[in-house]
């Protein structure tokens, strides 16, 4: 998998789609508009990479915006394929200077062309309703390069998926700690000769285990995981793997396949992958990630970036961004797609609360929202990530120990960071 | 090896290329298969080689019915009309190819190939590839390749057609010599009657897939079975005209050519070969229209009544245009044919 897809992003419409009635919440009162510049009717182009259910929902939201914004703003959605395709297209557009007015982006992309991205600080300061309502880790991500370059959009988080039927049978519950993971692994292995832990994303696996073990991973362009905690973290999984308690996705590509098939009893993967889990005769359990010395849950998903150079268009884009990040919209979006709302208030909205009652995944997501972290973008981030994936996988496959692998990996990562 | 063709027939979609051909190719004889283009010569040969399956009829090699035997097992040599040299092999490799197939040792094969190459005068081309040879040279390689394995039956499909006249004669004499030496039954396809006459022990004349005559060259030339054969053999060609037999006299264009012939009165086709004329003081007199010298021969054109005729003399004969010539026709050299069927009525 390419680096960008840390989090998996796309989920089909949840099975039980509720007719989302945008219940008027307390926040529905429109912002008392300041002495805002007037916006001329304009069409703005928005490049995205949403398909399937999320695309339908995005279209729905956008149609609503187009119909109701009252300022003559028309948002034109352009599907640019996968994230990879979109990334390439943006790359070309940067060079050809034909960027769209706005697009879905990862920080690891825009770090290469920050000059072309319009900082949003002024807009946020002058014309945004309660920026602090945005989930903190998302705000941090947006400000990663100093200024606010993006607004969060489709956000996902990792969850612990388990075979509830089997767990119940063996008297197991969702794990809270690493120790629990080990015990579950042993119990299940003894009973079924099957593994009970897998990760969709091995780079994320290593990263989160290191954080959970109380160390930093990479900070300010420096490697921080080359220490006892790092080694211990990797050894934790390597041990599990060697004993047959854990496995990697490997040929199955996503853990959802073998998991749904009953070949693996639990795994850790993105909330966005939920709709791809087709359980084969068992009940699905979803829980927050177990914690080590600390809680650390990787979050992922793209943000919205503004490229428009024309002031009028910028204003229009901003209107649209405000709309998409509004409590109503983000709640509706999340309910429809399984992504997480980007506002705390959206979590509290009655619609979302109703939804959450019926969704173990949403509960689990919400439960760990404060433990979220994002990996951060820096020069070479993608390379580091693909290196991590393949090195960790190599360590697993070659039966190495953390003592040997971690310094090795650290050295290679350092080399990239130094470049 | 005696080869028997029995009622051999080959039909293509809409052509009967060979039609009920029965023929005995005698052991150690060289048989010429002669006929105009498209008469079925190649087809016959290919059936002998086993490359075409007869529609009907049988082929026997001695007593053995080989009609269904595969080519590889027939032990024959074949020279194709269009060479069929292996373009990627050198001349040497082409010639040794059949030998090596027969598990002849490399050195031995090379030796025999060299001999063969010398024979057809391509000894200095052994390293070239077919593409680098002129047409004639290619044909010679093909001959060498067919002969080198000393096959039991040798089939030659117009093997000399691309050789120049000189080499053609030499090569055909070489083929003849080798054929006699090795003593293999050989079928030699040609549309060149002279070639057929000169090297064949027997000639089979075909037309439209039908056998017209099968006999020694002399016989075929002197006693053609029908008009077609008469016309096809001999160069310059026989002159055909019409005449009438009345009371034992053969009259043509008002001139009495023969008397006292034992034949009832009827109209007949008359064939006179150019060389049958000779100067005869008591003969009929004709004015010479034109004279043409081709090497050793002198063609003299004249009219007998309406009919344009040609007589041939050695080129040292002094005959000039306009001159009056007194001619006779040599005994037994007037050929008579039936007006309708064209079949021979004998010679007078």
């Amino acid at each position, binding site marked *: 998998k390419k680096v960008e897809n840390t989090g998996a992003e*796309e989920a089909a419409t949840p099975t039980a789609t509720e007719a989302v009635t945008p219940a008027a919440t307390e926040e529905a009162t429109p912002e008392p508009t300041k002495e805002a510049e007037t916006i001329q009717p304009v069409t703005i182009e928005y*490049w995205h990479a949403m398909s399937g259910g999320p695309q339908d929902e995005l279209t729905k939201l956008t149609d609503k915006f187009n119909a109701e914004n009252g300022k003559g703003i028309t948002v034109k959605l352009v599907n640019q*394929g996968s994230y990879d395709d979109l990334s390439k*297209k943006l790359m*070309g557009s940067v060079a*050809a200077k*034909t960027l769209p007015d706005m697009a879905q982006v990862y920080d690891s992309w825009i770090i290469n062309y920050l000059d072309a991205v319009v900082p949003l600080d002024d807009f946020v300061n002058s014309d945004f309703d309660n920026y602090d309502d945005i989930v903190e880790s998302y705000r941090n991500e947006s400000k990663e390069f100093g200024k606010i370059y993006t607004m969060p959009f489709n956000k996902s988080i990792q969850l612990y998926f388990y075979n509830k039927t089997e767990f119940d049978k063996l008297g197991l519950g969702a794990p809270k700690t690493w120790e629990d993971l080990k015990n579950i692994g042993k119990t299940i292995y003894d009973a079924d000769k099957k593994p009970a832990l897998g990760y969709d994303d091995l780079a994320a696996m290593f990263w989160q285990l290191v954080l959970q073990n109380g160390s930093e991973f990479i900070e300010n362009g420096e490697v921080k995981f080359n220490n006892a905690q790092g080694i211990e973290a990797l050894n934790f999984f390597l041990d599990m793997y060697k004993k047959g308690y854990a496995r990697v996705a490997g040929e199955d590509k996503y853990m959802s396949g073998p998991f749904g098939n009953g070949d693996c009893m639990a795994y850790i993967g993105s909330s966005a992958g939920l709709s*791809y889990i087709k359980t*084969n005769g068992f009940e699905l359990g979803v829980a927050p990630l177990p914690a080590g010395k600390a809680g650390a849950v990787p979050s992922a998903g793209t943000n919205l970036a503004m490229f428009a150079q024309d002031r009028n268009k910028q204003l229009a884009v901003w209107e649209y961004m405000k709309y998409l990040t509004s409590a109503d919209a983000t709640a509706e979006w999340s309910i429809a797609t399984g992504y997480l709302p980007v506002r705390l208030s959206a979590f509290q909205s009655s619609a979302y609360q109703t939804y959450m009652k019926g969704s173990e995944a949403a509960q689990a997501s919400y439960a760990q929202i404060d433990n979220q972290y994002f990996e951060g973008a820096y020069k070479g981030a993608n390379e580091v990530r693909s290196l991590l994936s393949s090195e960790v996988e190599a360590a697993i496959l070659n039966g190495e120990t953390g003592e040997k692998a971690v310094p090795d990996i650290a050295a290679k990562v350092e080399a990239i960071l130094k470049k | 090896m005696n080869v028997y063709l029995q009622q051999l027939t080959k039909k293509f979609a809409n052509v009967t290329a060979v039609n009920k051909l029965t023929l005995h190719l005698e052991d150690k004889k060289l048989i010429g298969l002669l006929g105009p283009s498209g008469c079925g010569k190649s087809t016959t040969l290919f059936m002998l080689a086993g490359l075409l399956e007869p529609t009907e009829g049988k082929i026997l090699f001695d007593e053995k019915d080989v009609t269904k035997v595969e080519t590889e097992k027939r032990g024959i040599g074949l020279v194709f009309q269009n060479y069929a040299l292996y373009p990627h092999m050198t001349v040497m490799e082409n010639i040794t190819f059949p030998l090596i197939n027969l598990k002849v040792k490399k050195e031995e094969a090379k030796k025999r190939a060299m001999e063969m190459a010398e024979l057809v005068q391509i000894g200095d081309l052994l390293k070239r590839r077919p593409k680098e040879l002129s047409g004639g040279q290619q044909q010679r390689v093909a001959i060498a390749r067919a002969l080198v394995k000393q096959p039991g039956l040798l089939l030659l499909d117009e093997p000399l057609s691309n050789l120049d006249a000189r080499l053609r004669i030499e090569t055909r004499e070489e083929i003849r010599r080798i054929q006699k030496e090795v003593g293999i039954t050989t079928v030699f396809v040609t549309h060149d009657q002279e070639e057929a006459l000169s090297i064949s022990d027997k000639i089979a004349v075909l037309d439209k897939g039908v056998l017209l005559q099968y006999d020694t060259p002399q016989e075929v030339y002197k006693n053609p079975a029908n008009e077609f054969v008469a016309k096809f053999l001999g160069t310059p060609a026989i002159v055909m005209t019409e005449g009438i037999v009345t009371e034992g006299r053969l009259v043509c264009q008002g001139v009495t050519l023969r008397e006292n012939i034992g034949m009832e009165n009827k109209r007949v086709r008359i064939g006179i070969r150019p060389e049958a004329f000779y100067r005869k003081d008591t003969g009929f007199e004709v004015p010479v229209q034109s004279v043409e010298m081709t090497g050793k021969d002198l063609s003299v054109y004249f009219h007998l009544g309406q009919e344009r005729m040609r007589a041939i003399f050695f080129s040292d004969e002094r005959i000039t245009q306009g001159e009056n010539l007194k001619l006779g026709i040599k005994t037994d050299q007037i050929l008579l044919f039936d007006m309708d069927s064209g079949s021979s009525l004998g010679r007078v």
Partner: protein
Amino acid sequence: MKGKKLIAEIFIYTALGLGAFLTLLPFYWMISSSLKDASEIVKMPPTFFPEVLHFDNYGKALKAAPFARYFFNSVMVTVISTVCTLVTTVLAAFAFSRLRFPGRNLIFSILLATLMIPGEMLIITNYVTITKLGLMDTRAALIVPWIANVFYIYLLKQFFMQMPDALYYAAKVDACSDWRYLLKIVVPNNRHAISTIGILNIISCWNAFLWPLIVTNSEEKRVLSIGLIQFQTEAGTNYELLMAASSILVLPMIIMYLVLRKQIVNGVIGSGIKG
């Protein structure tokens, strides 16, 4: 003798049969997958026959994008591109095989050298070029970069070179210009080769994905293969719909192939020439 032949035949048919099975398998897989439901499709071990035939997958797939318009665009782009490609290819192959001009071999070598560069490297530069040419989001952008293909030129040149010189000479003697010779003698005698190239081009043009996606923005300009993006995401793939859409995409090619198979296979290399 008979026994040997029988063994040989058994071997031949087994080999061919196995090969045919392996070849057909992906097709079968595509179609059978397109008829399964979402949970059956990820089942392990896979089911060979769909438990229930879900023909509604096709309906769903078709609804996911404006396929009718895409289809029309695909046909148009493919046809125009193929015609143009054939024209440039035939012209160039003829010149390189028959006409002598200074630098011919050098130019041809340079062209051949371009075969060695991975196409993945070209995309961004060409994207910029297309933008600068003002062709962004036009059908021309889908067509123009692909109407000359070195590989086809090379292929066709090989075919053309097999024409005997004598034919060219004869035409010259018959007061036939190079142009007329190309039209009247070369093209008819190589029609199999040319149509084969046309078919190769149609197939690659029809299936092209990344480039059409990158140089178009509007639905009105997009082509059928782009329809497939609807079913693939980073977190997973809606295989059943993807397979249904793939089947729809591939179907016209298969039909074309079946109809023209004789054309393609029989005597691809103008076998009449040598006669």
